[in-house]
């Protein structure tokens, strides 16, 4: 208590340096909070059951609009203070429009509001804004800050998280749909364990994949627990306002949170499968049912063709003379250059069954029972090296079997991002080719220079044998990929000889790339491109093999039956059905029962202490969780569902207080509890505990509707107060702890950028989808370890979308957003900084984006008004969202004329400079 009794005003002045050490740091002594008496709440206030306080009576009549105002006014009256006057209509419209949508009101919206004499005009504006999809963009950003949303993993490679933007869109959509808060949390925590999850429920579980991820950890077990800690710690802070992290290593020093409780909480997440750097395809809603039928139909049709063709081929083959057969086979198998299977595999060599070519085994390739006699089994790091057998027109065919998907990402099916099956890749753009096993059991193939690719649909990793053929016709430059005898697709590339590779690898991508896990059999190389019929004959294992089409073509027609050759063509026209799929970056678990959990002594993952089961922290009621796996045979434990049930229970004392506080925070600039991620003893006490509890019970009362809560809060008289100074009140309560006025605030980073785009007329309000890449200064790109690959490109229209859609890359930040205190994405960010720095001024004065926006604003003004004076009035009105004052206009007129007179600027240039001044004005960047 060494600072008790100091004039509280010193906090305002000293700020950073002098935050009373007794507040918020564990240095001992009872906490003081602003003007609130110490000890009124006592320890552990937030863990006590939520009780709905009575609405206090107030002396002043006519001010209070709703119970919020009663709570605020009662405290003001007790200190002899009065609420400030109401904000004027311009200020109020500006405030509410930014607070609900993150954008300035448009001229039409201002006009409509001013013209609306109805006493409920403001309430109608609130309704309009809450119905706008831009509401979800604004409030989604608050949530993304909390859950440390970023679109890359960080660390050495800082890889993109595939399709993570769908999570961002899910958050925006959920808020726009006013999803009840309990459902909002439950879906993120355990949407995949719901009875019949929709795709959107799976997308919501992307919540678990947002954090930093070291794909090359020095200690994999420790890294696993770091990842789990990220999940547990974020969940505790964001949803419960409990700062748990320190209990990972030792019992919490101030809160009654022993290490055992931390690991019992961590156990809820311990069955979560480690991130595999992949999104997974899931059937689009409703697509699976139709697909199963279509697939069954396809299999029937395929099987029928096959049976009929086999029968026809058998009789045709038998009808052919021995010598003709030999001759046909010789012709058909001409240019069969080599054939490999497990039959002639020895530990160091793979011998061609025709005797000509020998491959070198690298590592240990095992012979197993195969599709036909012996096959070869590859376990990911072993492979066979062959000399380059083919280069011009050729065919490679083989049988493949695996029950594991390959590497790579579904949105990037270039063959060399997969695991090599038969591969002749050379890094860089050269004349190479390859066939690979890719994400979600896709077959992909391609050739380089220019890069040309063909990919199958997903699902070949079903543990069954599949026939694959890849043909290349040099004359046409055409490559074709076949699966199970059917053409998957073709592409046209180079007509050059593909003679760059020295070797062909079997079972691995050539230059040390990804290895295949699975089996290969009967790998054939031909020095010509087989026809579709020949491939089908081979895949259907027709008698006569490649000769079968010729023999069948010679078979006399029988009455009423089509020519078998036509059947080949019919078969070739048959395509496996495609299922509409969505690529989802979500959570998966390791099975229906989770692992046994342990305390990890001093946070060391290797040092197992006492055994733990999933349980809730004792300080918040505690108790072991009742865990049941979800219905069906889904490989999930149900632990996260149990956690979601507990967190979203109306009896949970923290959940509802925490969200009520966050809603307040983003309307009033600070939470009733300033430390909005920490309601524990190291956090701040609420300045208005009764109001907080009343709001929390109101969230429950209103069914968890956040929009209803916004309405309640922003319709209060408290929210509508002016922000102007009142010296007498500042004397009593300089920090505005009691809310005698509304605090002015700076625009957030995103609001700064979006507002510049809005006033210049460039802003593109398109919602959703993959992220965008605004122009990145070369100087910033140069800070990346691979400057040339560090950033993407968007069209100017796309680059002018709202900032929530700017690609969030952990190692490379957009400089304007970074400079205005965008959230750090490595840990949960409950409160943004709002610094004032000289580098911000430089960016806003000299930066390319500011210059461009000033130019576009000037063009808009020229188009919208005739003379300079009117143009400047329009500019002032756009930037401040109130009518221009003559004095402001004249100041800019003076500048414009001086720039022309003394600095030789053209009228256009002078206007542009005036626009730059407008974009730099405090009135633009601050909200009253």
């Amino acid at each position: 208590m060494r600072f008790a009794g100091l004039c509280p005003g010193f906090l305002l002045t000293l700020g950073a340096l002098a935050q009373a050490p007794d507040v918020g740091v564990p240095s001992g002594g009872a906490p003081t909070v602003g003007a609130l008496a110490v000890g009124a709440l006592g320890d552990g206030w937030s863990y006590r059951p939520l009780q709905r306080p009575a609405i206090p009576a107030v002396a002043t009549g006519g001010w209070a609009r709703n119970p919020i105002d009663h709570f605020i006014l009662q405290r003001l009256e007790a200190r002899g203070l009065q609420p400030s006057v109401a904000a004027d209509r311009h200020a109020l419209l500006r405030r509410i429009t930014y607070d609900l949508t993150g954008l300035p009101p448009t001229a039409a919206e201002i006009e409509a509001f001013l013209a609306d004499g109805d006493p409920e005009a403001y309430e109608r504006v609130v309704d309009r804004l809450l119905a706008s999809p831009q509401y979800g963009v604004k409030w989604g950003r608050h949530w993304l800050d909390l859950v440390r949303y970023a679109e890359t993993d960080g660390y050495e490679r800082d890889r993109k998280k595939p399709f993570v933007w769908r999570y961002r869109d899910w958050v925006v959509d959920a808020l726009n749909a006013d999803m009840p808060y309990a459902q909002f949390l439950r879906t993120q925590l355990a949407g995949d364990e719901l009875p019949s999850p929709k795709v959107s429920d799976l997308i919501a579980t992307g919540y678990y994949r947002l954090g930093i991820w070291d794909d090359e950890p020095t200690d994999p077990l420790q890294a696993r627990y770091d990842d789990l800690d990220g999940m547990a710690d974020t969940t505790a802070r964001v949803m419960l306002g409990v700062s748990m992290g320190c209990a990972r290593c030792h019992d919490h020093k101030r809160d009654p949170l022993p290490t055992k409780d931390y690991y019992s909480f961590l156990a809820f997440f311990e069955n979560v499968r480690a991130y595999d750097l992949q999104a997974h395809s899931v059937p689009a809603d409703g697509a699976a049912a139709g697909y199963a039928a279509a697939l069954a139909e396809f299999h029937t049709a395929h099987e029928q063709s096959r049976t009929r063709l086999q029968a026809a081929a058998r009789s045709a083959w038998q009808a052919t003379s021995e010598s003709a057969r030999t001759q046909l086979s010789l012709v058909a198998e001409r240019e069969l250059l080599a054939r490999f299977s497990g039959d002639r595999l020895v530990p160091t060599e793979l011998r061609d069954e025709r005797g000509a070519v020998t491959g070198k085994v690298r590592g240990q390739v095992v012979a197993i029972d195969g599709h036909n006699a012996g096959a070869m089994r590859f376990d990911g790091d072993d492979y066979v090296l062959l000399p380059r057998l083919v280069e011009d027109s050729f065919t490679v065919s083989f049988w493949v079997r695996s029950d594991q998907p390959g590497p790579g990402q579904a949105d990037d099916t270039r063959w060399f991002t997969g695991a090599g099956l038969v591969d002749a890749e050379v890094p860089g753009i050269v004349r190479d080719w390859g066939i690979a096993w890719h994400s979600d059991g896709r077959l992909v193939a391609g050739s380089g220079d220019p890069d040309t690719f063909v990919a199958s649909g997903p699902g070949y990793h079903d543990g069954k044998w599949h026939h694959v053929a890849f043909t290349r016709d040099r004359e046409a430059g055409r490559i074709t990929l076949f699966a199970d005898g059917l053409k998957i697709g073709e592409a046209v590339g180079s007509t050059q000889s593909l003679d760059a590779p020295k070797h062909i690898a079997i079972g691995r991508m050539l230059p040390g790339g990804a290895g295949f896990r699975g089996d290969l059999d009967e790998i054939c190389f031909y020095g010509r491109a087989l026809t579709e019929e020949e491939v089908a004959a081979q895949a259907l294992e027709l008698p006569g093999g490649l000769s079968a089409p010729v023999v069948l073509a010679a078979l006399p027609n029988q009455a009423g039956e089509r020519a078998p050759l036509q059947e080949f063509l019919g078969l070739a026209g048959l395509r496996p059905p495609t299922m509409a799929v969505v690529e989802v970056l979500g959570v998966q678990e390791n099975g229906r029962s989770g692992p046994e959990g342990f305390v990890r002594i001093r946070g060391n993952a290797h040092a197992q202490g006492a055994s733990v089961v999933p349980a809730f922290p004792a300080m918040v009621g505690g108790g072991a969780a009742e865990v049941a796996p979800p219905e069906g045979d889904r490989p999930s434990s149900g632990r996260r569902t149990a956690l979601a049930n507990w967190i979203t229970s109306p009896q949970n004392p923290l959940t509802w207080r925490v969200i009520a506080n966050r809603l307040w925070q983003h309307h009033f600039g600070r939470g009733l509890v300033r430390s909005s991620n920490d309601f524990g003893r190291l956090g701040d006490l609420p300045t208005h505990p009764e109001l907080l509890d009343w709001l929390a019970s109101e969230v429950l009362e209103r069914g968890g509707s956040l929009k209803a809560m916004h309405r309640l809060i922003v319709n209060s008289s408290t929210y509508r107060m002016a922000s102007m100074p009142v010296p007498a009140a500042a004397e009593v309560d300089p920090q505005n702890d009691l809310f005698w006025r509304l605090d002015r605030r700076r625009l957030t980073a995103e609001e700064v950028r979006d507002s510049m785009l809005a006033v210049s007329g460039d802003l593109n309000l398109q919602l959703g989808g993959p992220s965008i890449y605004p122009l990145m200064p070369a100087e910033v790109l140069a800070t990346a370890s691979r400057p040339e690959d560090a950033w993407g490109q968007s069209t100017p229209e796309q680059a002018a979308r709202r900032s929530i859609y700017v690609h969030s890359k952990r190692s490379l930040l957009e400089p304007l957003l970074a400079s205005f205190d965008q959230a750090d994405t490595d840990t949960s960010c409950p409160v943004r900084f709002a610094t004032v720095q000289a580098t911000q001024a430089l960016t806003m004065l000299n930066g390319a984006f500011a210059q461009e926006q000033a130019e576009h604003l000037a063009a808009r003004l020229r188009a919208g008004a005739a003379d300079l004076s009117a143009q400047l009035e329009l500019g002032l009105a756009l930037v401040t969202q109130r009518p221009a004052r003559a004095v402001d206009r004249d100041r800019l007129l003076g500048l414009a004329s001086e720039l022309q007179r003394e600095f030789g600027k053209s009228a256009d240039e002078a206007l542009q400079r005036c626009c730059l001044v407008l974009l730099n004005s405090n009135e633009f960047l601050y909200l009253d």
Partner: protein
Amino acid sequence: MNPSNTFCGRTRREFLWQSGAAFPALGMVDLLSRDGYFPGAVSPQGANLRALDASAVSAGGENPMAPKTPHFAPRAKAVIFLFMYGGPSHVDTFDYKPALYPLDGKTIDIDTKGRGGTKKQGRVVGPKWGFKQYGECGKYVSDLFPHVGRCVDDIAFVHSMYADSPLHGSAMLMMNSGRILSGAPCMGSWVTYGLGSENENMPGFVVMLDQTGGPISGAKNWNSGYMPALYQGTVLRPHGEPILDLDLPKGMTMREQRRLLDTLREQNEAHLRSRFDDSDLAARIHSYELAYRMQTYAPEAIDTGSESEATKRLYGLDNARTEDFGRKCLMARRLVERGVRFVQIYSGGNHNDHNWDAHGDLVANHTKHAGDTDQPIAGLLADLKQRGLLESTIVVWGGEFGRQPTAEYAEGTGRDHNAAGFTMWLAGGGIRGGTSVGTTDELGNRAVDRPFHVKHLHATILNQLGLDPNRLSYFFAGLNQRLVGTEGAQPIRELIA
């Protein structure tokens, strides 16, 4: 003309008074800092944020970047960290291992852990350079560093360093921020947070990158993590625009910009008039004056043109090979002269052999990187010394780890990463010259005698700056976070003169 020392037409004192600030509080800064209280006060959890923000660039002592009184009398005021990104091989540079030469090419039993995983055996690559003794202390230095060799009497070597990770991504974060997990502030952030900057016209923490690009993880290596962006490193470039957006836009002159800023200030002051108690608004008005001054100041601060020819030669500016790193070293001297706290210069960028990461051909790699930097580093030490600046400036040399005594591949001289034992050196700022502390085993594989973790290096640097490494803290996520970790670390006493 606008006198830059007034604040919206008022003196700072008037401003504070009118802002309703309690005046006696100004004296509290000093009081608090003597108590060692001020570090650790900023809370991003919400408390007093508005107050923090308001003061961020206001004109005087309440500015968090203003110089602060350290915990105790400092030996150094500034740090120049020469970061040899990629991991230089200690046994080929400063850690002389005679026993290693005769083993060249022999396969021995040895436990190593690197990029290639954990191994029990390896083929020794004997050191590829000879070592000579230098200075009064007789320190052995390899032929890669003949110029630095002549400075050994000013240098203290720590041969027994170890780190938590032998992989670049996490090891870089550890050397820069003390943790292998991303998200913590870097050492330069801690130093500017603890001490402020002595020159408000320049950033307090600057980083100069290699011509080939940044290190892996880019900005994470100079990021302020959970602290405000105010404390993050600013990238400074030797050519072109020195700081992002510092140059005037095309067609604009300083005089014209001044005219623009005058209009802006008038406009903002008119806005402030009815909002007179908002120090954020006032601070933002001031920030434009600072920005304006920085535009003149920063280019001058890094302009090496005015240096004598002898000085330029000292740093190797007359040699195409050493010109780039030499210029950065010379810039670093000019910056610390002007009160910049923490300067970090990267030798090596991008990937593979663009930096010290010699997996393939050790000889070619280290010949290049040492040759590019040896003379500039020696020039920097000599120049700091002749100007009396070495007494108050710590120069740190080293990478994120060292390299193994054995080969990575079946052929060639390349060495894999080694975090179990490596060398860093320090000079100046009260560091005892001519000293060597700790040893690795006779093959240079692991630190055996007096092993020191990265956090001990950090603790030593903070200590020399007058900051108690175990008291310099920042409250975040329920913990008093420290650069040296929650368990703390003591400085390496043997290094301190």
